[in-house]
Every structure is written in C-alpha cells, then in structure tokens.
C-alpha cells in the first residue's frame, strides 16, 4: 500500500489514479480491505492496515486535505478543534 502512495509522486500517476482508483489500487496488489479504506478515505483504517503517515499524506494532499484535518480524524475531533488545540500550545499527554 505504501508503494502505491509513493507512486503518486508523479503527475502522470496522479492522473491515472484519479481516472480509476480501484483499478490503480488493484495494480499495486492492495488487499480488499486496503482498497476499501482508500476508496472510502478511511484514514485511520489506512494507518491500521500498514500505511505510514508520510505515504498516506500523499493521498490526503491530492484531496486537498491538511495534516490538521488528519489530526482531527486520528483524535476524533474536528479539524477546527484540532487546530485550536495546536494554537493553544498543542495537545499534551
């Protein structure tokens, strides 16, 4: 799965991915669960299924999603709440 995310570094690959996400995933041998997580943009599931944050983030960037949006997803808050916590000095604990 990380190999698939890594491939999205070229504009040409990003176009092919956008044109047929399922087919693109299949060509990299993703498991059905991994493919579903990608199609659903289930970010937590992508991490749980072996995605590394730096690779997963490449897909998020294509979608125009910020690292703060992902932070909200991982911590079960909204992007606004997550950002507010950072602005207040970050999360502790």
């Amino acid at each position, binding site marked *: 799965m990380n190999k698939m995310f*890594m491939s999205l570094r070229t504009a040409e690959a990003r176009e092919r991915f956008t044109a047929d996400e399922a087919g693109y995933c299949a060509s990299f041998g993703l498991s059905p669960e991994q493919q579903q997580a990608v199609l659903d943009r289930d970010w937590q599931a992508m*991490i749980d299924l072996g995605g590394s*944050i730096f*690779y997963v983030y490449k897909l998020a960037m294509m979608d125009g999603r910020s690292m703060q949006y992902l932070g909200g997803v991982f911590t079960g808050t909204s992007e606004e709440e*997550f950002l507010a916590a950072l602005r207040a000095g*970050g*999360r502790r604990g």
Partner: protein
Amino acid sequence: MAEVIWGLATSHVPSIGAAMDRGKTEDESWKDLFDGYAPARAWLAEHRPDVAVVIYNDHANGVDLDVVPTFAIGTSDHYDVADEGFGKRPVPDVVGHPELSLHLLESLVDDGFDMTVFQELDVDHGLTVPLSVWTPDPGEAWPCPVVPLLVNVIQYPQPTAARCYALGQALGRAIASFPQDLTVGVLGTGGMSHQLAGARAGFINPEFDAMFMEAVETDPQRLTQLSRQDYVREAGSEGIEMIMWLVMRGAMAAEVTKVHSHYFVPASNTAAAVALFDNRAPAPA
C-alpha cells in the same frame, strides 16, 4: 583544511516552505515564526560559507521505500528538487560538491561509519525548507553548494542519539581533514516535538523542547543518554528527528556561541525552532 564556521538547527516542516512560497509570512498565524528567523538570517547573510552540509531525512520522496539507509551521503554535483505530490517547490535545484562529498565518505567509512552512497538523489522539503529558512530569496541559486547527509528517523530502528552524535564528531574530523581551505556551514534539521498520527496526534512538549534547546548548546552529551523510546515518548513519534541536531552539534567545537534562537508553536502540527551557533573561538577577553 576546511573549517565549520557555524551550525544552524531548524525545523523543516513543509508548511514553512509553503508559507514562503505563497507569500503568507506576514499572516497572523506565521508572522511570529518568520520574525523569529530575522536575526539569524541577517547574521547568516554576513557569514556565507563555501559549502553547506545539510543533515536531514527524506520523507518518501527521493528514496525508494524498500531501501532504508541508517546514514547516507549524496555524492552528486546536482540534486533535483523532488515533486512531493503537488509539483516541485518553486526554488532552485541544489548544486552539489562532489569533492567534499567523496572526501567525507572516505573519511567516515574509514572511521567506522557504514554510509550508504547516493550517486543520484532528489531532495525533498527536509533539505529545501532549511535552505529557505536560511535564505528566503535565493534568486537563481542557493548561497553555496550542498552536501546532503541523510539519517533514517522515520522507520524503526532509528540510529541512537549517541550514534548520531558520534557521526557528527566523525563528520567534524572529516571536514577538518579536507585538503582545501573551505568554510563550511552545518545544518541540523527537523523537530521539535510533534506527532502526526495515532491517538497522540498533535502532541507537543514545550518543557522537553526547552531542555533540548539548552542542552544541545551547553551539554549535548546529556542528550546522547536518551534512548529511542525516550525521544518518542518525550518528543512524539516524529519529534525523534531532533536526533539530527546532534549530528550537527557533534561536528562543532565543545564550546559554541549561540547567535540566536527562537521557538514557535504551532507550525503545521509541530513545535518549530531555529537555533544558530557560531563555531569560531570567541575573541579572547
């Protein structure tokens, strides 16, 4: 012989580069960070070295993910700026210094450091953002040629803090034994505390960061006592990249003079900092 004239520690968060590339440095959320860079930039503009050694990590942009070197060095005369998924940053490509690279490689290997060589390499924000922190308006070219030195900080098992500091000390010896007279700036990049994924996403630890900032200047040995687990617990799973500051520090003299430092929260999801150290012996009183 070549001589390290300064060391610059700085975060390399991509959004710092993006804020500069998009003219947002005066925005409310960024102004304090960029104001904090100003004194360092002014001093650096007066102290341009002949070559810079940039210690950084790649973030799955320039290096294939099935190969993970603990320590690597580039030996090319040219490094393209990587496309990280949204086009290249609008900054100059990086000119290399193969002679110094090959000398450092030979010295480090002979000194028992098991370097990986990159004869070709695209460089990502881990290298270009620190160059932008140093030089906001490079024009056609960065101030000097660069030797990239890469550290694995993203995949377990990362090198220990002690090994990073030892690499820095060997780097200092290697620079000193270069036959030409060159001035060298050393950049240690990454940090400060942050964690991107998992339940601790957004974690920031200003007390640890303050301790690290003080100790990296005055007592770097103390920082080499901390384990990989200590760094992840205290600085977050990505904050461990601060071990790269220790490579820079190891290449410098026992006593350095702090020129300027600044700490800022948040830059993207991280605590960001800059710290500039003069490596030349202080003028006698």
